[in-house]
């Protein structure tokens, strides 16, 4: 996608930050608008997440504490000290099933530039616990903008020689990293039909498979993520072909694990998104259990998928 950022909002307190100056220099035609605090621009109720999505603005800001969070029960925790951090709010991709649409009032991209404040806090928590599993792409796709912002590289350097596993979950193909034992690439894959219909601006399946092969060749053992599994009307046929294709190209012995789960969402977020996004994903028959919207026949869908997965560590979420 063409990231032009016609408007870049910058907090006054970071106008002289060198990193900020470098980012601004990449967008000489953008309108630079000074703001007091990113929330002044990001939080107002009178914005449209949906309308902004095709003309995203960039907001450069300084994050205030907290800098890291414990992961939610809705994703896999792997039995470790699973934390996540938010170097960026929102994402340049536009996936119909993304919960951020129901969470934020704005789809503008907020990039926090006070990296050292993040590092200091992670260091403090790490020293207390002794090990961490840290996702920096938990509710964004940080690698999707790596060529522009270089955030993942900064984090990769930070965790070098520490007992911190750094998860880079992505749909992108920006994987230009030297082998590093504690970097965990987690590639989200979907059938081409799902990508075309529901994952706007993301790389095609073929490109993602190619990226996975590349990191395997460098020595990484990536995680493959099939989440969310979308129950298309002909989903059995589509997912059978898809999984056959994936594992005919990627030797499952070279991957760390498979993470999989069906489409599910907090019901409040589901309702908000349904009002603003015209996507058939929100018009399937669902049931609501404990405030979570999920497929009525979720068990059947999962069973079908499990039968198609190779003999490798599997994590159902």
């Amino acid at each position: 996608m063409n990231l032009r950022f016609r408007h870049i909002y910058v907090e006054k307190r970071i106008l002289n930050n060198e990193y900020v100056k470098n980012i601004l220099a990449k967008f000489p035609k953008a309108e630079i608008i000074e703001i007091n605090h990113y929330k002044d621009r990001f939080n107002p109720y009178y914005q449209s997440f949906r309308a902004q999505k095709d003309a995203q603005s960039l907001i450069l800001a300084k994050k205030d504490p907290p800098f890291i969070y414990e992961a939610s029960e809705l994703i896999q925790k792997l039995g470790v000290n699973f934390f996540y951090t938010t170097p960026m709010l929102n994402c340049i991709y536009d996936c119909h099933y993304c919960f951020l649409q129901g969470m934020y009032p704005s789809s503008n991209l907020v990039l926090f530039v006070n990296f050292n404040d993040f590092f200091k806090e992670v260091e403090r928590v790490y020293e207390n616990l002794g090990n961490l599993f840290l996702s920096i792409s938990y509710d964004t796709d940080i690698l999707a903008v790596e060529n522009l912002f270089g955030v993942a590289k900064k984090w990769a350097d930070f965790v070098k020689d520490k007992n911190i596993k750094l998860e880079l979950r992505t749909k992108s193909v920006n994987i230009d990293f030297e082998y590093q034992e504690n970097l965990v690439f987690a590639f989200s894959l979907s059938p081409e039909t799902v990508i075309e219909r529901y994952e706007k601006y993301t790389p095609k399946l073929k490109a993602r498979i190619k990226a996975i092969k590349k990191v395997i060749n460098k020595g990484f053992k990536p995680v493959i993520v099939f989440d969310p599994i979308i129950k298309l009307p002909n989903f059995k046929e589509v997912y059978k072909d898809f999984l056959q294709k994936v594992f005919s190209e990627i030797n499952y012995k070279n991957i760390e694990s498979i993470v999989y789960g069906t489409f599910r969402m907090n019901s409040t977020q589901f309702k908000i998104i349904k009002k603003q996004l015209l996507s058939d994903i929100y018009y399937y028959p669902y049931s609501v259990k404990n405030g979570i919207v999920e497929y009525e026949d979720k068990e059947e869908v999962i069973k079908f998928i499990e039968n198609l997965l190779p003999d490798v560590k599997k994590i159902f979420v």
Partner: protein
Amino acid sequence: MIGIICAYLKEAKPLIKYFDLKKINEKFSIYENEKISLIISGQGKLNSAIATTYLLSTKKISNIINFGIAGSPEFKIGEIFLINKINNKFFPDILISHTFRESEIICADEVKIGGEFKLVDMESEGFFKAAIKFLKAHHIYLIKIVSDNLECFKPDDKFMDELINPHLENIEKFFYSLKKEKKTNLSLAEEISKKYNLSFSQKMQLKDRVMFYLLNNRKLPKIDFEKTNRKNDFRRIMDEFKI
């Protein structure tokens, strides 16, 4: 319809002439054609907010624009701007491509004859605060033309014509580029619900199903069987709308 709020008739006259707007008799001075409704608010934030509220409550407005003159200590007289920030705290959302320059503006309570700002007017904040009660920020715009470099003066019609007329073609193009919210036609679900006397919850389920069909470009089934009882009829209808 596009709504336009002008503080003074003098600012509005070039638009009224160019778009051939006719005065209609209402409490406010309103000028209209089929696509545009223009209201004269009077000076100041409060007047602007009242007129904006009146227009948005009484007309079907998809995009609203505050059009007028502004003072500036630095820009040239006659330059036109689309506003991207008001008083450092309100942000119109300019998501469309346009040919204007952009600027922030300060909205003052009284006439300013000096200060550290780029543009100044007396209506923008009132207009914007009223408009966001009705529309999302990407349907709210402010177009300002620099009329003075903060000298006190009384513009006459000739001055305003010379100031505004050179921009009218671009303003018209801008109006035509504005987008309306798309609405999906779910009248079929309404009709079926009425015909078979469906409950509210059944109607909502049917609406979801019709929506699914529309989003997938599926041919909508014809529902024309004899009415029996609500439960059976609903089951039969949903069978016709299979996923």
